[in-house]
């Protein structure tokens, strides 16, 4: 069984990089362009782990994480946040919103996969 990853990011480049990296590592990848779309596809995507950006149009990462945690079925799904800098304040906000962990952009493929492996069984 391939693990399913939902990625939420408004930048096409980042989405592509995530897609290539995750597919190479043997994950199945479902992509959304912002928090709203992320919540819309959540049920259909049925992810084992979510990777989300913070700054996005319509609904940012904090809002998206809260939304996921309110969903009974997905309130314990691991969520990794992409942050541009190892900014403690942003990390904290993401944590309070319910994020499991974070990845610093520009992400290194190995580190991304490591982080995903760490939070999934």
């Amino acid at each position: 069984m391939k693990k399913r990853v939902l990625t939420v990011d408004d930048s096409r480049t980042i989405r592509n990089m995530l897609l290539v990296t995750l597919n190479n590592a043997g994950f199945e990848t479902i992509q959304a362009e912002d928090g709203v779309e992320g919540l819309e596809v959540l049920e259909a995507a049925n992810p084992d782990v979510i990777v989300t950006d913070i700054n996005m149009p319509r609904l940012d990462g904090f809002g998206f994480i809260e939304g996921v945690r309110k969903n009974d079925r997905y309130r314990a799904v691991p969520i990794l946040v992409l942050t541009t800098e190892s900014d403690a304040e942003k990390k904290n906000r993401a944590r309070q919103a319910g994020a499991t962990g974070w990845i610093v952009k520009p992400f290194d493929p190995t580190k991304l996969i490591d982080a995903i492996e760490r939070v999934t069984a």
Partner: protein
Amino acid sequence: MDMNEIKEIFFQECEEQLAELETGLLKLNDGDRDPETVNAVFRAVHSIKGGAGAFGLDDLVSFAHVFETTLDCVRSNKLEPNQDVLKVMLRSADVLADLTNAARDGGTVDEARSRQLIKELEALANGESPQAAAAEPAPKAAPVVATMPAPAANDEGFQPVAFSFDDFETEEPAACDLPAYDIVFKPKSDLYSKGNDATLLLRDLSRLGQMSIHCDMDGLPTLDRMNPEAAYFTWKVSLKTDKGEEAIRSVFEFAEWDCDLDVTLAGDTPVATDELPMQPVPFDLSMLDEGAQAPTSAAQDQIAAQERDARDAAVSAAETASNVLQMAQTAARPPAEAGRNATTASSAAQTAAAQQAASAATPTIRVDLDRVDRLINLVGELVINQAMLSQSVIENDTNGTSSINMGLEELQQLTREIQDSVMAIRAQPVKPVFQRMSRIVREIADMTGKSVRLVTEGENTEVDKTVIDKLAEPLTHMIRNAVDHGLETPEKRLAAGKSAEGTVRLTAKHRSGRIVIELADDGAGINREKVRQKAIDNDLIAADANLSDEEIDNLIFHAGFSTADKISDISGRGVGMDVVKRSIQALGGRINISSKPGHGSIFTMSLPLTLAVLDGMVVTVANQTLVVPLTAIVETLQPEASAIHSFGASQRLISIRNSFCPLVDVGRILNFRGIQANPVDGVALLVESEGGGQRALMVDAIQGQRQVVIKSLEANYTHVPGIAAATILGDGRVALILDVDAIVSASRGQSLKPEISLAAAG
């Protein structure tokens, strides 16, 4: 593991030991007097003897035994390892290698030679000169009169070491040597609500080393008060790891606000034995102590000569056990710890043994070559496939969405990395080939009465195994040539003010993606006058030809060229330097010579690191794409009409710098077209061919240079005359790789196949 596999491992070990032996003897020969060098040499012969005993290889055992006895004299300073002694020992090492090979492959050895060496070794052990042994008539099966105690078992320090079978699975150093940490980890309820999981954190922790976990459930309330989403447990972990506290804390990086974490370095408290993953190996401990007596007791333990045989047998049995044990250890990793219950007297020796095992063991696996070959083939397919994919995307120009382009770039990168990694799997140091050469040097030096020292450098330079396998033959021939033709006799050297001993220097190094092997001798250099005269006599050059020194030197690569006044059976052997040049070229390599009269010659070979790819010139002939190996091409030129001369029905020559060179129409030879193309419309590739003659191959156009993956035509289709192999181009089309020699031969009128007509086409 069955007996055959163990035997196979024994022979592998023999090879390693023989290499050790030779290295050590050569060091002694250079004046090294380090006792460790002597010990290493002794150990090598000793362990070959021990293993051979286990498999009943009597010839090997008896020769090794005599050899070992003499080495023991050196070890105990009864015999000075001077040049004469080492001469005998180096030859003995060669015989030992022959005996090992005979035992492995069932061949025969030169009995007279080994008997002679046994006599010489015995003479040395008895304090006589080896020449004395040569003069005496051979006593029939002389019993070895040992004038000194045979080496006792405990000299070798047969130290059984307890090791854990659990260790076979892991790569970590033995747990008992590692720092131990006590970690107390108490998750808070929030940890779970954020999608973290104590189980996963503990799993990651366990990857750092050896871990034992205790779960403290004291905080667990009664069922009616329990909140199913809260965290109640405290995990107490003891972890033995060399990764450090930082690594431990980083496991909890995501959870640090949602748990209480306490990491402390445990004191030097010894780990309780029952926590060690050790399966006690059933050893009789009293036996351990016996095996580990202090060596001095051996001296008090002198036994009469008639008892010695019996003891030798016991020794070999013990050695065998020790060998098997060592193999097991090498196969696994250094033993965790010397036997706990051994006596103090033996523990130091055991530690030494353990350290030795540790330094000897590098984690390697053996893989069948055909598996690697299959992988290399697949990678070749992948490279081609990736090129095709890129090309079709470019051709269809879908305004490549960035994801496709990104994916392609990633794929290209990955493909390259895979190709490099796979090639690295097959890469091996040239050391074994270089080591074989020192024996060749010794043999030729003996035959010619010359005194020669071989110096090797860059033995660890790596190159693809297939290249290594094909390197031995030309190298052997060149070494023979260097000693036989290159170096002068000691008298001549002394007369020329040089040392009586000549030096042959063999070096390997990497240079711009190729391996460069140099063979230098400090002999007389090439006698240019003689070479020139010979070339004139053989009609290779005109009597008034104006050649540079370099051109004269390179004449020796012409077929049938030998400057030795009498054909010696050493270098001669019906093989000339032209054959060396061919075999180097067949490997996609080049060979050059530079020589300085009175100072010697240097042969330089430059070879590709692998045979799986080839640098080719991609050309067009009659609308077909062909690849010409770059190594065969001397130069390319655009023929001028004035330079083309016809003679006979269809023969044409091109004049290049005042000499004439036959034109070969590749399209005609391969039957791509019936009529001759006009040379002026095409390009001429000047190639060197067998016999050293140059030919100009006519092609229509040059597309460019490219590295191509070689695909065998024989394996996939059938042999095609004039074609060496095939490759697949980026657009998916098959392109044939020319066999330049065959094309040239065909142009001389030896047709490729009957249906190719070389008759004049009007």
